[in-house]
């Protein structure tokens, strides 16, 4: 089971509203390389990992990704806080307002809703871990793209933290992958 902790893993205190950045950033919530896809990917793949290390690692990284969903959601919420319909319309988010008002909704940066087609489970630990390693690299690349789209240190600081987590997750998945390969799995 999971337990809620009433804190973010990394602090988010964004002082300046930036609707365009909210629109881009939401992709790390509901886009193909986003945190929600990552959490669901690992938490679905964990059941068919072949040993204790694998079951632990997929459970633990999947759990950390849930806390990253919360960080990205908090950033989008704060960037959009108190936005008026006129302001949303001005940045081409009138469609979002029509469907969702000021609520959060997992989409990519172009407004395409989240879908589980963004991840796979094959039951083959090598195939799944290679997808996981690629997913971490793609998420890292998207964080770099997002960092290049803003000058606001309140936004860059959590993005830099999250980017670094992709590097660590890649390393751990690679360690597991290489060990399984060596064992002929």
């Amino acid at each position, binding site marked *: 089971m999971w337990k809620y902790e009433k*804190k*973010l*893993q*990394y602090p988010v205190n964004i002082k300046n509203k930036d609707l365009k950045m909210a629109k881009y950033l939401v992709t790390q919530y509901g886009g193909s390389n986003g945190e929600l896809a990552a959490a669901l990917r690992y938490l679905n793949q964990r059941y068919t990992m072949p040993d204790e290390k694998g079951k632990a690692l997929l459970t633990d990284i999947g759990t950390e990704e849930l806390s990253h969903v919360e960080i990205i*959601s908090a950033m989008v*919420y704060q960037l959009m806080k108190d936005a008026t319909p006129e302001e949303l319309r001005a940045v081409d988010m009138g469609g979002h307002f029509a469907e969702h008002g000021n609520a959060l909704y997992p989409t990519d940066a172009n407004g395409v809703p989240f879908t589980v087609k963004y991840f796979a489970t094959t039951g083959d630990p090598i195939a799944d871990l290679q997808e996981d390693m690629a997913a971490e690299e793609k998420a890292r690349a998207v964080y*770099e793209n997002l960092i290049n789209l803003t000058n606001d240190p309140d936004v860059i600081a959590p993005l830099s933290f999250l980017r*670094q987590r992709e*590097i660590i997750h890649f390393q751990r998945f690679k360690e597991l992958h*290489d060990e399984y390969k060596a064992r002929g799995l």
Partner: protein
Amino acid sequence: MYDYSNRYDNINSPGERKDNSANMNDQKQSLINSYEGFIRGNMFEELYKPYLQAEPFNLRPQTEKEALLNRIREYSFALVDLNLYLDTHPNDAEKIKIYNQYLNELKQITNNYEAMFGPLTLSSEALNSYPWAWISGPWPWEGV
């Protein structure tokens, strides 16, 4: 407000034990101190790869509550990152020892925080109060 400079400075000095488990990754992975690790998002010196050589952002808490919460985040983060390492290196006794040191620090600082500012989990002793303390904001996404 807090001196982070000397904590765990020596945890990787001589005698860092090599993991003998079956994995092929024998890259050195030495721990840095928990504050620096937290602001980097990475506790391992050799794995740290900043983007565009950017320096990590120092935390600038505005209140005692925020400063204490940042220390909770710092120790929690050290545990998260050490746990992922230990998942793939379960025989590294030195890192298991460090994990448990951070766990003790986290328990102490969490008790202090919750006594002053309310529960962070539904297992907190701070819930033995009236009215029901869990619902008190601000909630995490609302900023500090």
